[in-house]
Structure formats: C-alpha cells, structure tokens
C-alpha cells in the first residue's frame, strides 16, 4: 500500500494536484470569500472551452506537433454557427453545432495536410493558418458581430441549466469529452500509435504505424474539438465577434496542457494531467480578480507558468537521459 502511495506521489499529476490545493489554501487564507460554492461554480464555467480544446492540443503535442491555430478555428466555427442561427433560424440548433464541429475538423485537416504534404514544421504551418483562418472569419462575416438576440435560447441554457447536482451542461460535456479522449488514448491501438509516433518518429513507420494517417488524425481532432469549443463560446458568452472571439485562446490552452505535464517533445502526457492543468489555470484566473489583482497580471502569470512548466519538463527529461547514460556505461 505504501508503495502505491509512493508511486502516486511521484507522478506528475500528484504534483499538479498538490499545487491546486496549495493555491486554494493560500488564496482562501488571504480572502476567505474564495472558499465557496460560488467560486467553484465560476471556476467550473471558466474551464469547459479550454478543457475541450486542450484534449485536442494534447493529442497534437503527444504526436510531437503543435497547433497554434485553434483560436482562429474556434472563431471560424463559432461565427459560421452564429450566422446559421441568425440567418436560418428555422433550422434546428443541432445543425449549427454539427457544422461548427465539421468545419473545425476540416480546418484541422488542412493543417495536417500542409504538415504531411510539405513536411513543414507544424509550429510554422499553424502560425500561418492562425492568421489565415482569422482572415476567413472576417471575410465570411463581413466583420459583423453575431448579436446576442440571434443566439438560440436552448444553446445559451446549456451554460445555465443543469441536469444533475447543479453542474451546467457545458461542464458535463467537457468532462465527457475528456473521458472519451482517455479511453481513446489509453485503450485503443490507434491512440497508442499517437504516443509511439511522438516518442520515436523515425522508428514509428518501422513498426507499421501509418504516420500520415496519425498526423492527419490528431490535427483533425484538434480542429474538431476547437470547433465544438466554438459553439460553446456562443453558448457561454451569448455573442460571436470576429475580432474578439478566440483571440489568444491557443496560448491559454497550450499553457494548460504543458502545465499538465504533456511534453512538447512528444510521447508523454495524460488526460488526467491535462485536466488538472486546465483546473489549475482556471482556478488562478478566478482567484486573481477575487484577490483584487489587475487583469493585466493574468497574462504575466500564464506566461510565467508556461516557462516554469517547460523548465520542469526539461529537467525531468535531462535527468532520465542521464540515468540512461549511466545505465549504458555500467552495462
């Protein structure tokens, strides 16, 4: 039993969890108002969009790529869905939702095709499409916002009503997505192939892994999930604005994923860690205003957290490389 706990403590997830508890205690000590059901509710509402996109981003990172374009994909899916709601109110809401997901998947696939076809580094490709897709957003919308009165009530209620324990639908959907991602990554062969590809891209084809298929898959999934997050944006905020929606979203998501212990060098990362990473950043974003810290500091904190998480990742990796070298020299 003690071995079990020992192992648990040494896992990256335990560290993140402890950090969450520590921050809650410290903030609660300074400002007792923080420890309340209301805080819990606000935190819970702050995270679903990030959590859903983080699942996609995590798969991309595990495959040793990165997707910087998700903020623009979110916006594109969101604006098109919003325009469908506005201009074709007779259609059922689900049509807009499915179109948003499909468009996200298509844009993600486009990223994947560029990466595979031209063997370009994904950081450059998605930096380009981040801007390209944002351009599409302005083009299709004519730079016009979709105003709140056009967003269907049933969609908005997803953020406000709850089927169980007062947990909003949005939050439930996000956790369902996370759980399905977990099943996919840990318990299907295709999921494991993503890890294998990221762990050793040179050897992956030698083991029969279809590198093209896996690469296209992770980018499409990342896009589809960003598309889903796009509809949820409309639900949560009640409007879609071409110049505001999803701007800077990718950084928040990547920060959360990296904080959750997903390695930018591929091959490493868990759904649980990512969920905790999202919770940690979500909680901080709620705590800072309660403590009276200016919103400007939010960015500073997110940036610092990314750098810190990368440093930890680096140290862990170097230590294991050293261990490997020692194992080799004593062999």
């Amino acid at each position, binding site marked *: 039993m003690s071995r079990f706990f020992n192992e648990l403590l040494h896992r990256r997830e335990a560290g993140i969890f402890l950090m969450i508890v520590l921050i809650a205690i410290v903030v609660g000590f300074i400002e007792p108002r923080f420890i309340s059901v209301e805080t819990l509710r606000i935190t819970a509402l702050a995270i679903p969009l990030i959590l859903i996109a983080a699942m996609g981003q995590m798969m991309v990172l595990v495959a040793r790529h990165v997707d910087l374009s998700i903020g623009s994909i979110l916006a594109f899916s969101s604006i098109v869905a919003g325009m469908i709601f506005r201009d074709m109110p007779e259609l059922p809401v689900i049509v807009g939702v499915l179109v948003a997901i499909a468009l996200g998947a298509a844009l993600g696939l486009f990223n994947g095709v560029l990466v595979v076809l031209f063997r370009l580094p994904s950081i450059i490709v998605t930096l380009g499409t981040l801007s390209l897709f944002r351009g599409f957003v302005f083009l299709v919308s004519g730079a016009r916002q979709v105003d709140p009165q056009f967003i269907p009530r049933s969609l908005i209620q997803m953020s406000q009503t709850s089927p169980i324990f007062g947990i909003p639908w949005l939050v439930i959907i996000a956790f369902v997505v996370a759980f399905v991602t977990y099943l996919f990554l840990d318990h299907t062969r*295709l999921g494991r192939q993503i890890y294998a590809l990221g762990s050793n891209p040179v050897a992956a084809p030698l083991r029969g892994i279809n590198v093209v298929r896996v690469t296209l898959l992770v980018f499409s999934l990342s896009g589809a999930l960003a598309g889903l997050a796009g509809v949820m944006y409309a639900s949560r905020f009640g409007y879609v604005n071409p110049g505001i929606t999803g701007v800077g979203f990718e950084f928040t998501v990547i920060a959360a994923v990296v904080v959750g212990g997903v390695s930018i060098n591929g091959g490493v990362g868990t759904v649980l860690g990512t969920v905790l990473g999202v919770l940690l950043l979500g909680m901080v974003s709620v705590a800072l205003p309660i403590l009276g810290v200016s919103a400007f500091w939010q960015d500073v904190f997110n940036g610092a957290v990314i750098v810190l998480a990368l440093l930890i990742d680096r140290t862990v990796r170097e230590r*294991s490389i050293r261990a490997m070298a020692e194992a080799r020299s004593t*062999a």
Partner: protein
Amino acid sequence: MTISSPPSDAGVFISARGISKQFAGVEVLSDVDLDLKSGEIHALLGENGAGKSTFAKILAGVHTPTRGTLAINGKQVDVGSPLNAQRLGITLIHQEPISFPDLSVAENLVLGRSQDAVLGRVRWADIEARARELMDMLGIRIDVTRSMRGLSIADQQMVEIARALDSDARLIIMDEPTAPLTPKEVATLFEIARKLRDEGRTIVFISHRLEEVRALCDRATVFRDGVLVGTEVVESLNDDDIIRMMIGRPVKDYKHAMEADIGDVALEVRNLSLRGAFQDVSITVRKGEIVGLAGLVGAGRTDVARAIFGVAPADSGTIHVAGSQVTIDDPSQAIELGLAFVPEDRATAGIFGTMSVENNISAAVPDKIAPRGFIRAALERQLARASLEQLKIRLASLRQPIMELSGGNQQKAILARWLHTDPSVLILDEPTRGIDVGVKAEFYDMIGALAAEGKAILLISSELPELLALCDRILVMAEGELTAEVLRADATQELIMQAAVPRTGSHAASPNLMQGVAAR
C-alpha cells in the same frame, strides 16, 4: 576458396541469388549468392565496409537490392520494407535497438504486431502477462510496466529479442549484438541464440570477434569489398584462414613520394585512459613522421583523438607537446598549442554546411581576418584563395555554401581551415572516407607533403592500404587498447588485422604477431 553452399535445397530457409546493391552509383555489394539454413547460426564476417551489414539490411528490408532475388522456402519474395520483412518472419536486431522510450517495455514488445482494428481495445492485462512470460523465458528480470527510457542497451536488446520470439521470427539477424554487453550478458545471449537455433530458426550473427564466432556459429560467410569470398563450416577454419579471407585483396600500389626527415618528438601521450572508451594508450609522434592508428570500428581510435584534442578529455594519463607537459581540457587550448584535428564525421563535426566556403576556411583563425575585431572581407578572400591553389579545391565560387561541394572538396576545405592555424601536430580521422579514388591520391600527396614540411601527423584510417602506403609506423588498437606497433618495413595487412581483431585472452599478442612488432 569457393562457395560451398549445399547443392540441395533441403533445410534452406532463405536463399539469395545475385544480390547487388549500389549507393549513388558505387557498388557496395555485388552478386551475392548465399543460402541460410533453418536451424543454423551463421556468421557474417568482414572488414568495415565489406558489405556484410548491407547484405543483412537487404534481408531485413531496410535496403532494396539493385539486382538479385531472395527466396524463402523456395518461393521468391520481395521483402521491400522492414514491416514486410517482419511479416515474412525476418527480424533485424540493430546495434542500437529501436525503441519507444516513453512507452512501457510491454508495449514496446507488442507495438505494430497486432492485426486487430485500430479502434479495437488494447488488452493491457494480456499484453503485460505475455510480456512477463517472455521475459521469464529469456531469464531476464525487467519490470515490464516500466518505460523503456533508461534501460541499458543490453536490456533493450533483450526486449528486441523477446519481440522476435513472440512474433515467431524464422530468421533473426543480430548486428554486432555483443559490443555493448558484459561477458555475463553475452553468455545469456548465446544461450538464447542456441535455444532458438534448436527450435529450427535461423540466426545470422554479425561480429568482429572471432572467438565469439567460434564459440557460437555453425557456418561463417566472409565478405570483402562487397563480394562474398566464401562460406565455410566454422570448425574447418582457423583464425588465420578467416583473416586471410577478410583482407586478401590486392594492395593498391600507391607509395607516397616524399620521405620526410624525422625530427624531435612533437606529440607524446602517456598512459592515456578514458573509462568505457580506451585504456593505457601511449603514442609518440615526431616531427615529419606519419603515425597510423589502425583498428576496427569501435576500437577507440576516435576517442583517443578526441581526448588528445580536448573534445572529451581523458580521465588519466599525460600529454606532452614539443617536450613539455600540457593540460588540454577543451579544443581551444589544443589549437593554441599547435594541434589540429580533422574529424571523422564531416557533416556533423566538420563543416558549417550552410555557410560559404570562405567562411568555413577562415573559421579557425578569426584573428587573421579580423585584426581589429571586424572581419575584413579582403583578408578573408585572400586567405581562402591561397588555400584553393595550395589544395586544388574545386568549386564554383568561394561564396557558395560548402555543402554544395563534393565530399573530397569539403574535406580539402576543412584541411585548409586547420592548415591556416599553422599546426605542428595534425590529427586526421578517416580523412579519405567517402572520397573518390582520384582525389584520394591527391590527399596522399598532400599528407606526404605536410610531413615533409616537418609536421607531425597522426592518421586514423580503416583502410589498410592507405596506412601501409603513407605511414612510417602503424599502431593498432583493439577494444580500447594498443595491441601492436608495426614499422613501415614490416607492415603487412595480415599483421595489422591480426592485432586489430579482438580475440580471447585478447591483447596478449600472438608469437606470430611479435615478429613484426618493433621494439621501442
């Protein structure tokens, strides 16, 4: 010696006919006919670059033959890819095993083998149970749920062997599997190999170590210069036969024209050791002398050179330059002391690929082109031009990126770079590797001329004819130790090869060898 493959096809698992391979127009393997039988352990022997690894890689689908056919159990097959080889029951265990460091040992064992649907469920419990079973079968104690990262090379190799077992491979090729292993691990490996043979599988064993071949293998095939020289039952061969088969090529009749006057000691290293690389190496090089350093790949020659130059300094021992003891902890100190080192691996350790030829030539002497801290283009141009003439470097423009030049011209540019430092000691590591024959002769002249100018030269080379042609003395290394010192007059390929091939009781030189060893 002739090919003595059995006339009948009985028991033959895979047969190669007329297998040839060209790389960039150079034939590295020609017309190899070989039958490998079920239930035998078959050694592939040969010098570095003789073609044995290329042949093994063709069997395993890593390379596609330019000509020739392979047949398994009498049926012609097209191996095509490593994955297909695996399906045909052929497994190659690389010297550096393939692994997925972030995945568990158990997962590494099964990855890519299941034919189930990609969205089918992964049965972790079954996978881990099977992995434990395999590990027990091989007598290895590794926690199969731990990640591959951090496993020793030996253990990684065992995991690959377990993988081959599990996939029911009929032909298992081991490329120098024993190099990183301890004697105890070697014993385990041999035991497993024998067990696999007794089950009727075919094992191909590539090794430099004759005593291992003798202990393990049933038959041996020797390659030389891309040609199969002969296949014999191991028991019918003695070491001398094998060595003769390995080197019996006509010596290219190049002798360098200049005989330099040999002067004072320029470089002396005494009892240099680096743990895990080489032990107790002592070398003396005099002015105007060319000293060769022979040995097989992995003998530690490059490590010695890197230690002398301060790239990876030795643990113990002393270095003396021009008579006084010095400490060299990094290359800049070595350069200051008048040493120069042209490394073996041009692409990663030699050139700055995307930079211009003139930048590359001037790289080691910033002071000469930037007298006041700012680079003066005219000085750099002048310096580079002088090199062009001296070394006959052929190029389109001094401003073109060096990676556009041919291998030989790149090598000349690097040599030029070091000559500008006006070194007294020049260490050349495989200077003519991958260079056309014509340009090689130019290099030999150049090296001879440098010695005539009074430079001390330490020449590492795997090409025996090159060493015999150029060197005044040849030192031989095997497994990190000096095993012989041969004077030019006594040097023959056989003598050097005898000392270079590691054998039991290893480094005590045989009486035969001692005759050629010069007394100091």
